[in-house]
């Protein structure tokens, strides 16, 4: 190849041209094409993300609709269980309710005392509190007690009798003294 012979001035100019070209490429890729490509890629990623969300949202909405149908029974039952506990502190309404229940069973004297309140062990019942009560019936007969306990267990499904103590009343063997330890779960309000 027959290259033209360059003098020193021409070599300087050629070097200057090469430097200019390199600088042009640097500026182009660093300040123009690079940010533009980044912006392009970010937009594409955002589109993919939104599209994925839109696609999954259809599934989520249908899942929620299915769940709504499936949960109808549970929702109704949950509402009924919640309705068993009136507003206010349980110590305010539980003892009168117990007294009234036993009075309906012809047991006039019934005293319910709050022993303790704890959180249930089950994680699902995080919004509920377990109350431990001591119910004392100073004088009743065995048959009335049986009926009253049946009524108590039927009308208070969230009440669980944990201990039962029956003793004769001294000098009146036809009557018994009763102590019932029971626990209830009540929704926190």
């Amino acid at each position: 190849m027959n290259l033209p012979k360059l003098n020193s001035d021409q070599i300087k100019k050629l070097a200057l041209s090469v430097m200019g070209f390199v600088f042009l490429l640097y500026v182009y890729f660093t300040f123009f094409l690079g940010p533009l490509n980044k912006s392009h890629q970010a937009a594409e990623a955002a589109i993919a993300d939104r599209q994925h969300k839109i696609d999954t949202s259809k599934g989520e909405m249908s899942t929620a609709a299915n769940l709504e149908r499936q949960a109808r029974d549970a929702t109704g039952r949950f509402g009924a269980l919640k309705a068993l506990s009136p507003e206010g502190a349980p110590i305010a309404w539980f003892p009168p309710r117990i007294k009234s229940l036993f009075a309906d069973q012809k047991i006039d004297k019934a005293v319910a005392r709050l022993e303790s309140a704890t959180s249930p062990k089950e994680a699902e019942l995080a919004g509920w509190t377990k109350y431990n009560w001591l119910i004392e019936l100073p004088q009743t007969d065995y048959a009335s007690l049986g009926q009253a306990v049946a009524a108590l267990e039927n009308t208070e499904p969230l009440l669980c009798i944990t201990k039962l103590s029956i003793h004769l009343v001294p000098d009146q063997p036809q009557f018994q003294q009763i102590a019932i330890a029971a626990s209830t779960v009540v929704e926190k309000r």
Partner: protein
Amino acid sequence: MALHLNLLHEEILEQRQRHRDPLKIGILLLAGCGVLLFLYYGWNVYQTLQVKAQLSAVERDWAKVEPKVTEAQKRAAELTNIINTTRVLDSYIDNRFLWAPLLEKISRCVAPNAQLTAIEGGVQDDDKGVTLTIQGVAAAHEPRSAAEDFREMLLEQLGQTYREVKVEFKALDDAETVTKVDGAAMPMAHYTIAVSFKGNSAPKPTPAPGRSKRKNESS
């Protein structure tokens, strides 16, 4: 042979050198590359703008759907929580030990010549086992036999409903006093019976609200 004389040699040389000036050529090359790069950049800008327009359209779609999706997710979480809580509450209700049927069974076992003086019972936390201590007196010609009859009857009655039933005497002592049964004086025996059993194998009496009607009825 003709003789050619070039009297403009220096001027022609100068002109040729101007034509192949490296700086000029470099500037031309640079300008050419610049134009190409600019065109390429323009094409990229066009594509990016198109993608951004597409992104705007997708975001508009998402903005329409998002409130419904958020609402659906919230509702689904709420329903799942309700279902789980209801299941645990149902389990709590179903796994309760019911005392009324037990009291009824005990009452069936007490013969006219026997009397119970105390019953102490409790439900164990772990496996829902139930323990009972029953104290009483029996009066008969053979008061120990009367107490044994009560124990056997209790074992039979409880065995019909509960699992792993154990009914054992903890104490059985003759009393020094006598009592009258149907006008006849009978010796008495004091007894203490320990009872243990597990679970409700038969009755599922207590209805959760809105589920079923009452089944737990003590006689």
